[in-house]
């Protein structure tokens, strides 16, 4: 039987883990690294590079090197976050035929799903080389705040990469699984996950081997890269002050600045000050210019402290959703490389009034949790059960353009919820049920998942007929909605299919293309 791998498909780095001899272990890649950069590049001579190889050549080939594409996956081109990326990224982002952002690399426009699949395929390969056997099944993690299209795109990416995705689980949940693995204690755990591109906070309760998500909150557009960006902007401004040159339009310089900023940020977790040296960063009539600026921990903290405070507001909201006070939490787990920053650790410790748990590796814990869930699903002898939740609220549009939520976000699945609705006009014989997903009170601001009409209602004064609308989410997250006239017993229903930005035909086409490429690469 083939084994199930757990993949943390990160914004900046990805990681793969597996359960071996009843213990989770992180699989190192050929270079001996336990994480692989989520980067993809096409070289001048058309070679495709992934991971460390792509990262190593990123500076000289900035325009054809893609990073952080997870920020774009499952989004629409008009999305403000996509527009923000267009401004900042050295690679070019174009509008695809489904209104999705596509990444132009070496003259070919790749969908974000495709990029994700390339990285997943690499992780699959890392696992296969280590295990010496083919791998077909995986559990993949996503930020808790990913919506249905984002999750579906990730699932599609898995399929393109030749993986059957058993489950998509939330990153903080995975971290809690990793922490809870093999523990008997009853505890309430907060997972503070500040990764490259996203921030998530989840509060979970574990007891008797069951893990329940009490609340989750997050921000899909707040992460370690924002810290880097602050540093890059600061460097650009300083350089403009000293040398009068604006580096913003220079893709290669931007990539060098980004690398240097990231490295300086990491170094400042250990040291008080670092010197950033970028010789020949630009040139003008006076010849080449060199950048040499000292960055101290104090300056860095000054640049980013508002981002850290922003995360604490989200933490506060999550705690209140969970109905807990800061002192009710028994353990705080830090996930994501950015939590290595002393400022972040201090802020979290101050908020919860206790030092965060030290036992887990913030870069690896999510992949480990994913592999644990894979094992929990497929193993004969299961002793861990995750009560997973639905990420966004579901409901229907009601009179006046309001959104009536039937299933609140963070509700455990599988679940069934029903509610009685009525007519709004006299002698109304039909009602239209519009199924929505989202958090806004206003119907139009949420995503429309599907609609149908229930007819044959008895003519009656408004408010008299009773129509029971019920929502069902099964264990695989499939949503079905039905409406029933309680008087006549007439019923209508639909099953809502999650769709990513690609349709089935496009997915098949990409799979074929990749197979072709695989053959070429071997030849």
């Amino acid at each position, binding site marked *: 039987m083939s084994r199930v791998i757990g993949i943390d498909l990160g914004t900046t780095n990805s990681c793969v883990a597996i359960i071996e001899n009843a213990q989770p272990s992180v699989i190192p890649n050929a270079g001996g690294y336990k994480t692989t950069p989520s980067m993809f590049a096409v070289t001048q001579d058309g070679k495709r590079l992934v991971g460390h190889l792509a990262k190593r050549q990123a500076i000289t080939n900035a325009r054809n090197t893609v990073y952080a594409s997870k920020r774009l996956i499952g989004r629409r081109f008009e999305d403000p976050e996509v527009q923000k990326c267009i401004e900042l990224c050295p690679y070019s982002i174009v509008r695809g035929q489904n209104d999705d952002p596509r990444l132009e690399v070496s003259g070919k426009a790749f969908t974000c799903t495709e990029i994700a699949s390339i990285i997943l395929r690499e992780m699959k390969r890392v696992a296969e080389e280590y295990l010496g056997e083919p791998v077909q099944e995986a559990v993949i993690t996503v930020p808790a705040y990913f919506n249905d299209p984002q999750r579906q795109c990730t699932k599609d990416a898995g399929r393109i990469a030749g993986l059957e995705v058993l489950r998509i689980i939330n990153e903080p949940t995975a971290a809690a699984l990793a922490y809870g693995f093999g523990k008997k204690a009853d505890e309430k755990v907060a997972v503070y996950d500040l990764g490259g591109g996203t921030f998530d906070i989840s509060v979970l*309760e574990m*007891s008797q081997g069951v893990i*329940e998500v009490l609340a989750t909150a997050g921000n899909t557009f707040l992460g370690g890269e924002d810290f880097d960006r602050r540093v890059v902007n600061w460097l650009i401004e300083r350089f403009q002050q000293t040398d009068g040159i604006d580096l913003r339009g220079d893709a290669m310089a931007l990539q060098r600045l980004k690398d240097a900023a990231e490295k300086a940020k990491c170094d400042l977790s250990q040291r008080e000050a670092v010197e950033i040296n970028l010789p020949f960063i630009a040139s003008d009539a006076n010849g080449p210019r060199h950048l040499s600026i000292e960055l101290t921990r104090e300056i860095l903290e000054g640049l980013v402290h508002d981002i850290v405070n922003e995360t604490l507001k989200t933490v506060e909201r999550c705690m209140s959703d969970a109905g807990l006070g800061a002192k009710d939490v028994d353990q705080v787990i830090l996930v994501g490389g950015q939590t290595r920053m002393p400022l972040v650790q201090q802020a979290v410790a101050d908020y919860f009034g206790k030092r965060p748990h030290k036992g887990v590796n913030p870069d690896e814990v999510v992949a480990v949790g994913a592999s644990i869930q894979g094992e929990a*699903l497929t193993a004969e002898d299961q002793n861990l*059960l995750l009560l997973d939740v639905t990420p966004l609220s579901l409901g229907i549009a009601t009179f006046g353009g309001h959104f009536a939520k039937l299933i609140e976000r963070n509700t*455990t699945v599988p679940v069934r919820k029903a*509610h*009685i609705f009525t007519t709004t006009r006299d002698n109304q014989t039909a009602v239209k049920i519009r199924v929505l997903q989202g958090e806004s009170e206003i119907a139009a601001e949420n995503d429309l998942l599907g609609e149908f009409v229930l007819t044959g209602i008895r003519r009656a004064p408004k408010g008299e007929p009773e129509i029971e609308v019920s929502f069902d989410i*099964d264990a695989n997250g499939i949503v079905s909605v039905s409406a029933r006239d309680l008087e006549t017993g007439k019923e209508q229903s639909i099953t809502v299919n999650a769709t990513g930005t690609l349709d089935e035909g496009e997915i098949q086409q990409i799979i074929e293309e990749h197979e072709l490429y695989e053959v070429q690469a071997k030849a």
Partner: protein
Amino acid sequence: MRLEGEGPSGGAERVPRLAPGCDPARLSLTPAEGYLLSRIDGATPLSLLRQIAALPPAEVDRCLERWVKEGVVEWSGSGARFGAAPAARAPVAPASRPAAQGIDPSLDLPVEMQQRVIEFEALLDRPYHQILGVAPDADPKTIKQAYFGLSKQFHPDRYFRRNLGPYAPRIESIFKKVLEAYELLSDPATRAEVQRDLAAAAPEAAPGPAAASAASGAKAAPDPAAARRLRARMHGLARHRRAFEERKRKAKAFFESGMSAFKKERWLEAAGSVRLAIAFDPQNEAYKAAFSDVQRKAHEERARALLKEADGAYQLGDYRDAFRLYDEALHYRPFDAELSHKTARLAWKLGSDLRKAKDCAMAACELAPDNPGYRRTLGQIYKAAGLFANAKRELQTALRLDPSDAESRQELKTL
């Protein structure tokens, strides 16, 4: 129903059986139909059902046709279940455990868990705290522990990709109901409401949904949205109560019809009806108490009929059938030493199952330790099985009990 198609009526006899996973308690049946359903055990052929049902034969056919269409009943393959000894025990299970209908050992779900699902389904109409198995005033921690415990049994992820057949949606439904109970009881606001509704609904059975919604309507009058919410909830509760009352009513009708059959000494019919009554109202102790009496009588009657048929088959020289019928009768008369002995000898003579022969002979010897004939048979069976030391011991015992037993002496000599 004849072994390997042998025997007088082998061949095209149609035998209905209950579809795996079907729950008879969900159907709406008259007692006569219920009785008919209770006779369907995967062994009784259609021709016999037409005779024993309390319905005209055409009606029996119509009912079966309908149930097949509804997926409750299916036509089984020819008598495969008599091929092996364990399967021959099957008729006993539905008789002793009414809920065992729908158990399918071929599924990737332990039989005990299937039983648990069936039992739990009967709980789903009950008040929320009973679903979780906690006291009405249980504290939040207890409620959560109960919820976690039940999640470990019923969360579909526990059975990821396993072949559960019809149990997959049933387990999922149970989990959804458990979750609903947990959610309502773990939130103080909804819990108070549930308790109030329960208190209003509980005494002197079903005041009717109209009265209930009028009461809540009055309370919530100032806020129309809240009124609607309340009404929705009351509606759900009223529906539950109606379903619950309906089940109890059906149970009572079955029980009464069963008791009247009992008085007329129609034991089999009585047992079938009482069994259905318990399926509809599993908590009713009176039904359960009555059932053991009725069942004993029914077993006696069934055994009598089987023995009669078996003796007939034996006289006709149809030993295979005779053996099978004796063996089945033995389940209803496990205390009958002579029957055990007879079955043992038949099994031995047929030579098909010496282990079975030995078991029956041993049972006969245990029931009547001083019977030399039984000892002799046991000894002979041991001998046939090549267990000579055991054979010698038993034959010597037989000789000790009856020194004039020439047959045993002869057998000992040839050992």
